[in-house]
């Protein structure tokens, strides 16, 4: 018994430092709910924003300083992949908290729960980035999702938000069930007791022929569950509605942080556990990637709402990134996806920041509302122009470079057919990105737009600057990306 306690103690001591950022965030979030909530009076809840911001910053420092290692009996692991994607999550969460101020103030919806939920969701995402066991993948995903469900429907007064939250919750629960069912199939196929990704990677190819259907089914179910989380077509139906209905900062949060974390898990699960079975899931995943590119880009054309448009464009971008998962050499694929997600974060946050700024009281995100922005706010419009061209992949912007690098890897892996679809659909995508530019520069009118505040200016400026000049510093980016990988 003593040795058991000793062992438990050791593994906790070993594991706890690995999840220091998550512990910090959860503790602070819990304290914020109680007794923290009593600290500020009802009209002063906005004071929680700096607290949440600071907590996220400290968590970011922890991530930066964190040492690589494995803990909790192989359930969680800190390595290049973990840290790289965790950095994206933290950046996105910081921007979300900063951007929320304006929206929450204008709707008088400032509460402590909002910030606490963001912190909890962030913790879930941070876990997801480093989860190395199907079970830990599952519960991190659930922690992230549960908080997101609430955040999406956070504005009780707005019907579409509540509807979106409900929709997200129902479909999310359904997809989680599919995922866990897939896990149970694999559990059976390998004879039980194996859920660790690395062990699965070793055992799955050795599963006897009689059980191969179980394995195939399990992999397929898990694939579907994960495709739902990253909103890849044809499992994307929730995302346009949810993106549109959610408070815009939360939309931005989901589009960047949740996607990055889910992609990290996707890369890890398929890169380690199922890597040996690539022949089985290659075709389905290729199909999903192609569908996402085609459907996302084509459906985005007809959107009137900026948020819906970005949702569909996000589906298309996920389609591109899934090509990285399909890379046979997982290390390069992971690097390309991370690089893509990094630049995607900057572009998307910048674009959402502008949308939030244009919105009055949380509504008014139609593309038409950007009308005449080029004249009214030249700097904002120019930034939006950069984001749009960059998403369309026009050189020399950062979006081009990461697309180029990703396509590069994909061609190297013989995915020429998929890359051809990717480039053709990205030509299509230019159409709707140009539509935004067209509204800003070639049309007059629209409501007055006030000068942007500090949060919006900073985020737009940083996003714009990074997007504009990153290609010139390509080697630096590649060097950064080369640190991403399993240890």
């Amino acid at each position: 018994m003593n040795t058991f306690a000793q062992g438990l103690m050791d593994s906790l001591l070993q594991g706890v430092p690995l999840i220091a950022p998550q512990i910090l965030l959860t503790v602070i979030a819990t304290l914020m709910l109680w007794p923290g909530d009593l600290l500020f009076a009802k009209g002063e809840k906005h004071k929680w924003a700096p607290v949440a911001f600071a907590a996220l910053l400290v968590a970011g420092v922890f991530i930066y300083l964190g040492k690589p290692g494995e803990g909790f009996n192989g359930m969680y692991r800190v390595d290049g992949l973990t840290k790289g994607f965790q950095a994206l999550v933290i950046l996105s969460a910081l921007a979300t908290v900063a951007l929320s101020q304006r929206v929450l103030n204008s709707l008088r919806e400032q509460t402590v729960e909002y910030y606490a939920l963001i912190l909890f969701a962030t913790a879930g995402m941070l876990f997801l980035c480093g989860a190395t066991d199907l079970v830990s993948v599952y519960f991190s995903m659930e922690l992230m999702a549960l908080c997101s469900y609430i955040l999406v429907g956070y504005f009780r007064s707005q019907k579409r938000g509540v509807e979106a939250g409900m929709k997200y919750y129902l479909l999310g629960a359904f997809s989680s069930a599919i995922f866990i069912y897939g896990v149970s199939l694999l559990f059976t196929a390998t004879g039980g007791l194996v859920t660790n990704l690395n062990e699965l990677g070793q055992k799955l190819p050795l599963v006897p022929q009689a059980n191969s259907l179980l394995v195939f089914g399990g992999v397929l179910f898990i694939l579907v569950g994960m495709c739902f989380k990253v909103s890849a077509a044809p499992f994307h139906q929730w995302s346009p509605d949810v993106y549109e209905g959610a408070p815009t900062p939360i939309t931005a949060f989901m589009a960047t942080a949740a996607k990055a974390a889910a992609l990290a898990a996707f890369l890890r699960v398929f890169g380690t556990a199922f890597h040996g079975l690539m022949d089985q899931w290659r075709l389905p995943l290729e199909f999903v990637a192609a569908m996402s590119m085609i459907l996302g880009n084509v459906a985005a054309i007809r959107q009137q709402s900026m948020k819906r448009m970005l949702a569909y464009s996000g589906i298309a971008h996920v389609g591109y990134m899934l090509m990285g998962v399909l890379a046979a050499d997982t290390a390069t694929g992971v690097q390309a996806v991370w690089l893509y997600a990094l630049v995607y974060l900057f572009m998307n946050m910048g674009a959402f920041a502008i949308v939030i700024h244009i919105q009055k009281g949380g509504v008014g995100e139609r593309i038409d509302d950007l009308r005449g922005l080029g004249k009214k706010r030249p700097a904002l419009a120019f930034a939006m122009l950069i984001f749009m061209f960059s998403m369309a992949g026009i050189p020399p912007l950062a979006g081009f470079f990461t697309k180029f690098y990703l396509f590069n890897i994909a061609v190297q892996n013989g995915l020429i057919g998929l890359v051809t679809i990717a480039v053709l659909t990205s030509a299509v995508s230019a159409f709707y990105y140009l539509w935004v530019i067209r509204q800003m520069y070639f049309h007059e009118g629209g409501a007055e737009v006030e000068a942007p505040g500090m949060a919006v200016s900073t985020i737009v400026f940083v996003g714009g600057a990074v997007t504009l000049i990153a290609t010139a510093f390509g080697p630096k980016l590649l060097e950064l990306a080369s640190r991403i990988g399993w240890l």
Partner: protein
Amino acid sequence: MSAFANPTMMLVATFLPLAAALLLLFVPKENKAAFKQVAFWSMTLSFLVGLSFWFGYDRSSDAVQWAFSKDWMPTLGIKFSIGMDGISLLLWLLTAFLGPISALCSFEAIADREKEYYIWLLVLQTSMLGVFIAQDMFLFYIFWEVMLVPMYFLIAIWGGAQKLYAAIKLFLYTLAGSLLMLVAILAIYFLQHKHSGHYDFSIASFQMMAPVIAAQGKTFGLLLALAFFVAFAIKVPMFPFHTWLPDAHVQAPTAGSVILAGVLLKMGTYGFVRFLLPIFPDAVRTLMPWLLALALIGIIYGALVAMVQADMKKLVAYSSVSHLGLCVLGLFALNSYGLKGAMFQMINHGISTPGLFLCVAVVYDRRHTRQIADFGGLMKTMPVYATVFILMTLSSIGLPLLNGFIGEVLCLWGAFQAHPWIGASATIAIVLGAAYMLWMVQRVLFGEVSEVNAKMGDLSRRELATFIPLIAAAVWIGLYPQPFFRVMDAPVAKLLKQANPGQVEGPALEMAAVPESAPEGAGR
């Protein structure tokens, strides 16, 4: 003068317009004169600096000269490398030459949002100049794509009634083509890595891949060649990829048309010369019947459609389809005459068609119509304009002793040598070209003067200033093309060797007999 000819000055001359554009960002909107002057003078200066390359160019060598290379992304084999050979030098100079003209012709025509206009114009200039000096595929691709953005804005903001449609059509068409090319570039890049073990994006190394690509089997080479071909054919534009051109030309502001016709279309033919012929000699041979057929259809179709146009600008636009068709025909004749003819045709078309667009703009600025039927008898009211118009027309239809002649004859000659029947049928283009052009001139310049037209003033000094360099260049090339031949001799010979692997080079072309024996001053 040639002391200036070094890589640093090449960078300076290329990026000067961009630097000017950045400077203009900080000039207040109201300072309209500043935009015009800075745009005009920076591009003039860039041309003047560029002239030193003309004098300093070593005509005996076919190597890339003033090559400069610096590692950019070593892990991917991407370098920032620039340099020029005779072919790029000529097109670079043409671009730099047309830059100030495009600024000058906008001084009065563009009356709103001048700041943005001149900034986009300058950005466009740098990206076009960059295409011709890039010696690295990645760099080339960046310049090639960036070009689209300013062009999109120039058309979409300052264009005609259908400007938005035209602009987005141009953008999407060319983007789709270039993206396909990007896939092909990546495929070759990896093939090369498999073959040689290291990554290299330099254009020279791509050109050396020709035998390796050929060894991969017919379909592989064919697919890659097609991806390149479509990207360039859209830019040229070759039939049936030409449908964006009339829209873009008609809707674009004059400077946009000048640049479109003068430079952008040459990007396509430059691409053929620089990439398609050297990298895919075998695939080109396989595709040859199709390429020639498309070129021939383009020549005749363009001319026929031009003939029935009621809009002057549209007529000139379709004439471009025809002229560039001839240029492509000369290119794919794959002999010395044809290639040199094609090179000449590129330059000539870049002089006479911008001239014609400027001529159309002169009357459009005065009457705000471009319908041929609205004009007549301008010879009487605007004699200087009429002279200029006739000169540009004659240069465009290839009258001997003006620039157009030499290119057309060489293209036809080359085509005839390679494929007698095709060469012979293409001569129809000359007849048709003369017909639609002269018919337009006749209807616009001669006949009765209507009351409205009688009030139109003749060319202003500024307008005349835009035409003088074009006329001078047209007459110079018409009378004494020898210097141009000397610049392109060596690179064309090299290109021929690349495009005809394993074949003996044809006899060197001696052109001394044709233009120099003609009586002086017969250009008028």
